[in-house]
């Protein structure tokens, strides 16, 4: 018996800093928009279980897009992009996300992203606290050096396997094999974007000394880092939260750097906690 998922996919076209983009997104649910960013070199299937979670989608319109050059979102249509080295900058990334939210006319969205999506969540809270109701930076820190590497697309090695097996032990050994291998599989698909994404992750994203400028009273910030993440440890997530006035921190035990994709049931418990914290902050403001 065939079974259809309630998740639907669409394309939307808009412009970002002169680039004409046709962007693919998946969505399900109704209520406050919860906009989800995948990790570097990946695509929106990392959010597959959240998108189909009846409990969450009862109250939230979950939207997971593919960043330009990822998944089904092609590189810019009006540009000879193959003649340039791809390096994602904080300015472009932030402009993309706000343009996407504007294109969909989203009101008071909560933004959630993991890894380089977590780092950009911090950038959004800093630069556009009025545009977002709250942000949930997952696997985030003020700075995450060391991953902008040529190995990810070295012509003498199998880039698909280097990317996928290179991020393998960002995941926890306790996470189910099926989900870890699905995540590995996604990572075989994005090697051409991965290195350029990591330019943002390890070079251009640097909020050291600037976290105090984020106002988590205006735009609530709940940071969540996982125990098996070797790039941004729980300790680094906690230290980042401590430097942001009003920010909160949740440590996720027994899980790694791709929590929503490697072990959704464990991630969900923490996500619900984060959403409750945000709801009570926003409720206190209006009440």
């Amino acid at each position, binding site marked *: 018996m065939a079974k259809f998922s309630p998740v639907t996919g669409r394309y939307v076209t808009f412009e970002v800093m002169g680039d004409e983009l046709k962007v693919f997104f998946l969505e399900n649910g109704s209520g406050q928009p919860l906009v989800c960013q995948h990790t570097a070199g990946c695509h929106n299937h990392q959010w597959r279980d959240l998108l189909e979670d009846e409990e969450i989608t009862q109250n939230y319109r979950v939207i997971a897009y593919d960043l330009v050059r990822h998944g089904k979102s092609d590189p810019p249509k009006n540009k000879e992009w193959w003649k340039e080295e791809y390096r994602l900058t904080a300015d472009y990334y932030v402009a993309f996300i706000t343009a996407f939210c504007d294109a969909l006319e989203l009101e008071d969205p909560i933004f959630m992203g993991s890894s380089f999506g977590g780092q950009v969540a911090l950038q959004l809270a800093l630069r556009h606290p009025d545009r977002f109701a709250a942000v949930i930076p997952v696997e985030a820190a003020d700075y995450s050096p060391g991953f902008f590497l040529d190995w990810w697309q070295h012509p*003498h090695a199998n880039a698909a396997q280097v990317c*996928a*097996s*290179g991020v393998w032990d960002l995941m926890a050994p306790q996470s189910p094999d099926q989900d870890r291998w699905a995540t590995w599989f996604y990572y075989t698909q994005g090697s051409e974007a991965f290195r350029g994404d990591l330019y943002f992750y390890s070079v251009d994203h640097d909020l050291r000394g600037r976290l105090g400028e984020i106002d988590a009273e205006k735009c609530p910030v709940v940071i969540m880092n996982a125990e098996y993440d*070797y*790039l941004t*440890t729980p300790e680094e997530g906690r230290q980042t939260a401590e430097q942001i006035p009003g920010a909160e921190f949740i440590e996720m035990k027994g899980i790694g750097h791709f929590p929503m994709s490697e072990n959704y049931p464990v991630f969900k418990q923490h996500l619900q906690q984060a959403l409750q914290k945000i709801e009570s902050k926003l409720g206190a403001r209006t009440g």
Partner: protein
Amino acid sequence: MAAETAVTSGWIEDFRRASDEDAELQAHGRYYSCAYLLDMEEHSYLVQMHAGKVEEILEDPGPLDDRYQFIIRASAETWRGFGQETPPPMHHGIFAAAFRTDLSLEGDLLVLMQNLRCVVRQIELLRQTGVPV
């Protein structure tokens, strides 16, 4: 020392069997041919792989005994973490440990990257065999 030798030689056989019988390595290891040194502080092992099978494992090789392309070097204590069934954080993979423990990756890292999937899997087999240190 005799007891120790018995323990470690048992490990060599266990590790060989775990590798040669591992479904993933055998399904994807057709081109997995290289040699690397596992330096565990108290002992070192030169692992020679050919077409996904263990050709030979030399224990504590002498300085000129044979060649290898890269080294995975860490303290015995770090390797003991790798040898647990559920390794503690930062002992659950060579990249994690290289970023956060005393483990270092040395030599021709291109060969490591060319064989990364199989090396990562083979090192995980230490969770089944334990480590000889």
